[in-house]
């Protein structure tokens, strides 16, 4: 039997990316040097990833990347970075994080910008290790292959293919004639926003509004806000900081989940694109709707919040955090009433705009689903009428509509199956997990949100789940981040057979 996929090409290009992974490892290494904590957890991975990368590059000289090879390469890239990213946690050997399953869970949660943690006691871990979590998330935020396309000239031709495979939803909007320039532009916006947030957060600290927000915290939080990922070096997340910091983080989460293509035009002074985008209005409308809903519930519930400012801040913060799939918490929303928690739970399924750093199903898909369905209602009563689905004035072709229906359905099936697994697996080890907690944990990992409700709440940890559940969740985060299809394609026999 001959294999139809030129897997050597895929592995070779994964090698090229791994070879460069030593660069981001320098930041935690530097912090470890400064703090005088263990250096080996970073030095060994630096050597390992470089050797592994160079080794994989020797597989072939061929560089021709086609659609088949792109699926394999995208899936493998995310998986292999998670594996390399887990090495420092294992090598550092601190607490439960050092077991291989926990380390891989944490690393996958990092690179896929999920923000679900297995850390129970944050005090045990060095600042370098905690920074490495944030760096992983920042790398994963815009899509690791968008970054690769921007900096690696080898990917200049296959780059569009890769970016499209990585983000299934949108045709890669080439802003410039060269795909690498487009990718570089997106990264410049990303870096610019990150820098801006560091300045804002540290600025608040300097003028006395954020006594807890040191430079280290400002950098770590900026890394995990724009990337809508949600790891905080603090055990109690953003609840550890002043209201000023919480207010300041909200717009950055919201911007991170806004289409970077539209942001690019907005920064050029062209706000019309943003204003005329159906999806942007839908996204902002949903944020507003759920904020008002959650705020209303909190207002009725009264305790523990005493002022309108608190209610507004916490309602807005949590809705933005969950809907954009960031996963920060400004308060322990585990303690909220069922109505408020269920509203937040619904937000997990929405996500931000396509072409942003967000995960989940995304507003573009929901908007097309809503429009296509209302069209179907119209044609039900007018059988001979033809009515295309329109989005921001453009016609969405029927094949795309069908793909979006299918994707949404498959996502929900994944979620249901995962939920059942979590419940059954927990009862196997006599761990008390309610159905709602299991649903929220499945959604929080599969849709890359991070914190769930109950046992895996915002200030809790995924550590108590059995090993088997954590392995499945690691898989869910991986599959969810690259939007299912690249991984599922690999599981079809016709992909491999000739």
């Amino acid at each position, binding site marked *: 039997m001959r294999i139809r996929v030129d897997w050597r090409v895929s592995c070779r290009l994964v090698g090229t990316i791994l070879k460069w992974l030593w660069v981001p490892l320098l930041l935690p290494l530097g912090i470890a040097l400064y703090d005088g904590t263990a250096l080996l957890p970073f030095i060994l991975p630096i050597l390992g990833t470089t050797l592994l990368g160079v080794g994989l590059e020797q597989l072939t000289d061929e560089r021709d990347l086609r659609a088949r090879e792109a699926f394999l390469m995208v899936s493998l890239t995310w998986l292999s970075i998670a594996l390399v990213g887990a090495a420092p946690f294992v090598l550092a050997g601190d607490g439960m994080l050092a077991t291989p399953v926990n380390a891989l869970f944490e690393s996958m949660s990092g690179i896929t910008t999920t923000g679900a943690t297995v850390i129970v006691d944050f005090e045990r871990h060095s600042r370098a290790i905690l920074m490495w979590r944030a760096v992983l998330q920042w790398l994963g935020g815009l899509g690791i292959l968008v970054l690769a396309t921007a900096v690696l000239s080898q990917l200049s031709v296959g780059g569009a293919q890769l970016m499209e495979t990585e983000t299934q939803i949108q045709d890669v909007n080439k802003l410039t004639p060269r795909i690498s320039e487009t990718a570089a532009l997106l990264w410049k916006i990303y870096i610019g926003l990150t820098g801006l947030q560091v300045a804002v957060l540290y600025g608040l600290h300097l003028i006395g509004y954020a006594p807890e927000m040191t430079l280290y915290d400002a950098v770590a939080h900026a890394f995990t806000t724009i990337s809508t990922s949600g790891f905080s070096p603090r055990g109690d997340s953003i609840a550890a900081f002043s209201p000023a910091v919480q207010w300041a983080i909200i717009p950055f989460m919201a911007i991170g989940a806004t289409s970077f293509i539209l942001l690019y035009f907005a920064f050029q002074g062209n706000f019309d694109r943003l204003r005329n985008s159906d999806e942007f209005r839908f996204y902002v409308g949903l944020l507003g709707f759920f904020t008002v809903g959650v705020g209303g519930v909190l207002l009725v519930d009264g305790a523990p919040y005493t002022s309108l400012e608190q209610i507004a801040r916490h309602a807005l913060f949590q809705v933005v955090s969950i809907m954009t799939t960031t996963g920060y918490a400004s308060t322990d929303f585990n303690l909220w009433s069922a109505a408020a928690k269920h509203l937040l739970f619904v937000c997990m399924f929405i996500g931000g705009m396509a072409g942003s750093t967000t995960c989940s199903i995304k507003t573009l898909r929901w908007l097309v689903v809503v429009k296509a369905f209302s069209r179907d209602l119209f044609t039900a009563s007018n059988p*001979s009428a033809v009515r295309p689905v329109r989005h921001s004035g453009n016609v969405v072709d029927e094949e795309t509509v069908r793909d979006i229906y299918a994707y949404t359905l498959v996502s929900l099936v994944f979620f249901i199956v995962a939920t059942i697994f979590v419940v059954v697996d927990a009862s196997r080890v006599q761990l008390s997990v309610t159905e709602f907690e299991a649903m929220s944990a499945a959604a929080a990992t599969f849709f890359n949100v991070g914190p769930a409700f109950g046992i895996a709440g915002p200030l809790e940890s995924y550590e108590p789940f059995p090993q088997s559940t954590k392995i499945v969740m690691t898989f869910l985060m991986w599959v969810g981040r690259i939007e299912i299809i690249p991984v599922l394609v690999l599981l079809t026999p016709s992909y491999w057979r000739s």
Partner: protein
Amino acid sequence: MRVIVVGAGEVGANIAISLAESHDVTVIDVNPEKVEELTYSSDILAIEGDGTSLGILEEAGIAEADMLIASTDDDETNLVTCGTAKTTGDVFTIARVRNANFLDTWTRSERAFGVDFMVSTNLLTANDIVRVVGLPAAVDVDPFAGGLVQMAEFEVAADSEIVGRTVEEADKFDALTFAALVQEGDVVIARGQTRIEAGNKVIVIGSPESVQAFSKTVASAETADEARDIVVVGGSDIGYHTARLLEERGLEPRLIEQDADRGRQLAEDLPGTIVMVHDATDVDFLVGEHIDRADAVIAATDSDEKNLLVSLLAKNIGVARTVAVVEQGQYASLFEAVGTDVAINPREATAEEIVRFTQEGQVENLSLIEGRQAEVLEIEVDEASVLAGRPIHESVTELPSDVVIGAITRDQEFIVPRGGTVINAGDHVVLFVAADVLSRVMELV
């Protein structure tokens, strides 16, 4: 004036023949039979050849020509012909196009393609259709003076309140002038004592509001309301533009197209239209979709026969008004005779546009009445005109009797022409002129 017409199809030949009465016309066509036919049937120099070839154009005397009209059935040929002609000097070029995209391009840059004036047949026709549909009982509507003045031709319904009255009695509208009546195909100037019979057509000139108000008194009771529920049958280019223009008026028309792919394309291009894919000659379908309750059905398929069938079917199931597109000019009156309310011939609209460039004098706009028995003209009055600087009751004595002054506009204001109204130089005047006195009138005004 020396005019070269490229393309002796129906439009080209008609233009050539009508221009030949007062101009030197040369026709170029690739078809030797057409060339021969024209050579023997009229006083025209006909040359066989390709109008896009510089050699042929030179043979036709492009160097001395004042105007070139490219009127073949192929858009690209017409554009290339104009471009080629421009290389030889400063001939005024007119191109007829079907595709409105070319018109868009040309509107953006008036030097595009070397075309000095562009006529889009399909767009003009769609405009005509939409104007007629918007006015109950109208068979023809043309705007003048930038829309301040309208010329409209109505068919008088049997139960209309003006039947049996004289023009004097019927003329209750302030800003409206009765120009003429068409009785059994003959144009008659409207005098105060002329009696209006059912089945006559009346031609009025006035402000759009008064024309609209007048239309209600002409129409029968069932059609007197403004048409809102409009169905376009046929997704031809004319059908597409008609639906688009109706959308622009804030209506939600329905369009029925038989071909599924074309239907999908139209649905994508027409966000405000309900596009239906079905055979419009299926009566069960028409009744099932309540097409019978529509205010108007416009038959705009590519086939005259089908348009006739659709409009008759629609009329039969009870649609208030039917409009049909007729490519073959001579069928137009036949369509109206057998029951179609309005038959619109795309070529006539094109001919109006092209002829207005060849009229001597300061004609700004023009409309042809009943097979050129008469014309409605808009002119800008200059000092030398007999109209200038004196009241109308004085100046009419010098004009032939078959002339009606329909409306005056001054500084974008509508002025009702009465006996004592003084016309100034610079005013725009809309005149109704019978064809036989046309050249005399043009000299005087």
